[in-house]
């Protein structure tokens, strides 16, 4: 016997739901099922599915229309008419209203089109931002069982960043003791130099404990992942490749397993390849085991990111309670544990998402909401205008006995029809917005934003758009509907709807909308101005150095091949010499960290004569530089001297410090000649300040003018070597020559981040420019919508007063008087809007100042300029209908 085919689920559910009260329920369902089975045999599954859906559709229509009482409820008694059930009657009348409304808008396609477009814009940008919230914050990871994953951190209240905070000692202790988790794993950022037959490459990598893969439910495409045995030094020379790296560097070779490759100059055996698309942590292209020797295992320095999976049935609160207990015992037992640190347990997503992201998304959502409010005010205005035009029709209906509720419902149907029409257009707007956003983000940065690639139109977005459209329609339609349903019947009918009396409250409400629109547009414009100015200042303003004409090349010296300070020093010096020989290079220098870099180096310092407080260390940006580095970047020496070739004696360390460091640590005294030392390596001795240089902006989201010290790389050779070359021509064209210069020093060393300093700056400020760009779009939308709104109100205002204007003109008023009257009115509305808007703008500016880490500063001139611009727009928008009014022919207007 063939199994009975199952009909489409949704349709089936709908049928059962619609028939739930009908005594014919089982018969009807049985019939449709039986015929469906026959259809499947005769015409196939797919066509039978369509057939089924059509049957259900017809039944639902019958049920809703009340055409077939049998499938509704109760037995129909013979000869006794079935009284209409009020629900059905409501639906029927409402459907009727909807049809009427749709017909009405078909008759006035322009007004309908403007309303639909306005709603679509407002809803579309909101849907796009909603999608960002949904995808980037709510479920940025497509890991099964992500709800059971937590992130553990070990940090102080001042440093809320949960990642890279856990020390090996803590991780190993927790893993041993915690009962609430069934898996715990840790990882550490470890990019690697990959050498081989082809040119060497810097590959994004991580050192991971063996349980990380099962924790995120990853399985290998080839070979295996790591086991606990690999977490032992000596057994850890194994590597798992990502699918992308395997394809790119190994030509998808299936025999890659067992092959030995060189990472950071050391041999590693390839044991596995990840599945296509698997890249956790975000951007990872290779993984090596996280192994600690006895000394490292006792380290209390936090640099690991720790994740754990709750046992089934256990809660995050239980995990918190257990972890707090473990950590308290740990602190009591270990004198070296940091007293100011606490253990924290967060959800995986809360821990993974960038701490700044929610604020920025909230800012965008606020801006998008303002746009929607302005759009809503516009639509309400247009509906009100429609209501005003239809006053006579409504008055007749009321006079004939239509209930007020009935009229309100009729008018609400108007806005619902518009919402249903606007929803698909809004999805289109959201799609375009998201496409543009995705295209604007450089691929190199996408790896830092989990879930970015998943942005796009999805089921949640569709639901949101539909719900928002309905909600907006009801809210926007309610006020005008309630207002229009209450015309003064006798006045309207007697005067043919021409007198102003019935329209007084009406136009008061419409003027209120205009004031509201201006009041909402102003803060939005101020906000977009603020972020544009902030972004401009950071991307194009003075950086404290001159990025123009400079090319940068990075490389990292691995421990295996450059173990000694001498080797690293020689490498850096030879690299500078090699680069300086390249034709077109004027000055070359190196630094262990550059401005506009994705990472920073900092060291705790101990000042001579000030007792060191390990709980509150003084952190200072650290740069180990070649003698001509400051010159190459044109960072000015303000006092004292720069670094010189002679500063190489390990016994007499010297430093040039930034002005901010001098003023912070030695505010009252001359910093030159003062001494400090690096708290972690006091054996290197006291460093003497020999010069003070200008401040630089290193990163847009750090506060500016961070204290920075420049120490001679000859005295403090560093593994990170970043070459900067000031060139006489186009710096980008020298990229191949500088790569060759690096290869000439050591062909195994990969060159990465080879780009001009201007490009590096551009990439570093992309987030800020992104925020500013989106805010500018919102501001522009707000301005256009507000202008359209004012124009529409003034136009219909003028149209309603044609008669009166005709009288004025006939009685001797000049056209100038009329123009003044109308523009003056618009001016007063704008002033009221601007006054309210300035208060809102001040509040929003405060929010932005905190959200954007001091990048924006509320400037009264910006407020003033925006207010004037907005008021001017409003007046210009009112000029067109006003000028139109002055051309009224009194004779014609009076006869109307």
């Amino acid at each position, binding site marked *: 016997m063939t199994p009975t085919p199952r009909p489409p689920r949704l349709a089936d559910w709908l049928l059962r739901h619609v028939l739930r009260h009908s005594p014919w329920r089982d018969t009807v*369902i049985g*019939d449709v099922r039986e015929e469906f089975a026959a259809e499947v045999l005769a015409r196939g599954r797919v066509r039978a599915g369509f057939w089924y859906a059509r049957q259900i559709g017809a039944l639902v229509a019958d049920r809703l229309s009340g055409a077939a009482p049998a499938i509704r409820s109760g037995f*129909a008694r013979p000869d006794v008419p079935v009284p209409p059930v009020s629900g059905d009657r409501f639906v029927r009348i409402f459907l009727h209203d909807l049809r009427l409304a749709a017909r009405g808008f078909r008759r006035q396609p322009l007004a309908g089109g403007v309303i639909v477009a306005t709603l679509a814009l407002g809803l579309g940008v909101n849907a796009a931002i909603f999608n960002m919230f949904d995808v980037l914050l709510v479920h940025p990871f497509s890991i099964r069982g992500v709800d059971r994953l937590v992130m553990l951190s070990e940090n102080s209240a001042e440093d809320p960043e949960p990642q890279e905070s856990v020390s090996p000692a803590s991780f190993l202790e927790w893993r041993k003791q915690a009962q609430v988790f069934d898996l715990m794993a840790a990882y550490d950022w470890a990019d690697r130099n990959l050498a081989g037959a082809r040119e060497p490459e810097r590959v994004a990598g991580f050192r991971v404990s063996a349980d990380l893969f099962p924790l995120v439910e990853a399985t290998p495409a080839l070979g295996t992942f790591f086991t606990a045995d690999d977490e032992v030094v000596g057994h850890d020379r194994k590597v798992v490749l990502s699918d992308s790296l395997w394809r790119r560097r190994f030509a998808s070779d299936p025999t890659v397993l067992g092959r030995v490759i060189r990472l950071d100059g050391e041999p590693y055996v390839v044991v596995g390849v990840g599945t296509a698309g698997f890249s956790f942590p975000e951007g990872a292209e290779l993984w090596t085991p996280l192994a600690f020797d006895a000394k490292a295992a006792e380290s209390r320095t936090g640099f690991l990111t720790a994740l754990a999976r709750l046992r089934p049935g256990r809660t995050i609160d239980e995990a918190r309670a257990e972890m707090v207990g473990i950590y308290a015992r740990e602190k009591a037992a270990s004198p070296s544990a940091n007293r100011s640190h606490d253990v924290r347990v967060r959800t995986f997503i809360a821990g993974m998402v960038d701490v700044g992201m929610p604020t920025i998304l909230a800012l965008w959502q606020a801006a998008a909401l303002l746009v929607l409010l302005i759009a809503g005010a516009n639509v309400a205005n247009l509906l009100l205008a429609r209501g005003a035009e239809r006053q006579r029709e409504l008055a007749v209906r009321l006079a004939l006995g239509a209930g007020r509720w009935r009229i309100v419902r009729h008018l609400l149907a108007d806005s619902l029809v518009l919402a249903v029409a606007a929803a698909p257009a809004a999805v289109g707007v959201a799609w375009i917005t998201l496409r543009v956003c995705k295209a604007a983000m450089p691929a190199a940065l996408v790896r830092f934003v989990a879930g970015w690639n998943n942005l796009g139109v999805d089921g949640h977005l569709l639901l949101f758009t539909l719900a928002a459209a309905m909600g907006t329609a009801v809210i926007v339609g309610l006020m005008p509907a309630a207002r229009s349903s209450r015309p003064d019947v006798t006045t309207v009918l007697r005067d043919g709807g021409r007198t102003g009396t019935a329209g007084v409250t009406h136009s008061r409400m419409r003027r209120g909308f205009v004031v509201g629109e201006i009041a909402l547009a102003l803060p939005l414009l101020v906000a977009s101005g603020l972020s544009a100015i902030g972004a401009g200042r950071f991307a194009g303003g003075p950086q404290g150095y001159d990025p123009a004409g400079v090319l940068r090349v990075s490389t990292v010296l691995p421990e295996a091949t450059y173990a000694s300070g001498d080797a690293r020093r020689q490498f850096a010096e030879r690299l500078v010499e090699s680069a300086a020989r390249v034709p077109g290079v004027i000055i070359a220098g190196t630094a262990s960290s550059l401005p506009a870099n994705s990472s920073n180096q900092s060291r705790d310092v101990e000042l001579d004569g000030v007792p060191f407080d390990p709980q509150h260390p003084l952190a200072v940006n650290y740069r180990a530089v070649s003698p001509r580095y400051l010159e190459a970047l044109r960072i000015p020496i303000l006092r004292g001297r720069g670094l010189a070739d002679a500063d190489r004696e390990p016994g007499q360390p010297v430093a040039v410090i930034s002005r901010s460091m001098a003023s912070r640590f030695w505010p009252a005294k001359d910093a030159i000649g003062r001494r400090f030392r690096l708290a972690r390596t006091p054996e290197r001795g006291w460093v003497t300040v020999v010069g003070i240089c200008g401040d630089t902006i290193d990163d847009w989201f750090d506060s500016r003018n961070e204290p920075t010290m420049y120490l001679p790389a000859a005295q403090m050779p560093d593994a990170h070597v970043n070459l900067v070359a000031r060139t006489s021509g186009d710096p980008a064209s020298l990229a191949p020559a500088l790569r060759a210069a690096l290869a000439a020093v050591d062909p195994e060393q990969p060159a990465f981040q080879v780009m001009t300093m201007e490009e590096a700056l551009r990439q570093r400020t992309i987030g800020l420019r992104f925020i500013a760009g989106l805010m500018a779009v919102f501001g522009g939308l707000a301005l256009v919508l507000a202008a359209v709104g004012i124009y529409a109100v003034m136009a219909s205002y003028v149209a309603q007063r044609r008669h009166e204007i005709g009288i004025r003109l006939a009685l001797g008023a000049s056209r100038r008087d009329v123009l003044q009257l109308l523009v003056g009115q618009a001016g007063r509305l704008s002033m009221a809007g601007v006054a309210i808007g300035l208060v809102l703008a001040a509040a929003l500016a405060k929010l932005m100042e905190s959200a954007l880490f001091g990048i924006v500063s509320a400037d009264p001139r910006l407020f003033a300029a925006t207010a004037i611009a907005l008021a001017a727009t409003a007046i210009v928008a009112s000029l067109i209908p006003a000028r139109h009014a002055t051309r009224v022919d009194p004779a014609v207007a009076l006869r109307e």
Partner: protein
Amino acid sequence: MRSMAKATPPPSYIGEFEHLLLLAILQCGDQAYTVPIRRLIEARTGRRVARGALYTSLERLEGKGLLTSRLSAPMAVRGGRARRYFTPTSAGLDAVRAAQTAVVRLSQGLETLLDVRL
């Protein structure tokens, strides 16, 4: 005195669709449940039968006492639901007869014009 003949109730008046339904039920015999009834009417009359109308009319005929119905055992092919079989009552048969007679009588002499082909 004229004895009053016992008044037999006149056959119920039935509408056209009800007429068709009763005929179809008779045609189907002991297989007269909703699916073949609907199919038969659609096949023989060439017109589409809306489900809602079908169930509503059957319900009305049953309510008028012209039909009785009984349920079969639940069937897998119907998703575990029973079939509902219909049988005309004697009043139902009378009603069909009356309607048929009316049609036949009214058609007499119009054979050429109507040119009914079966």
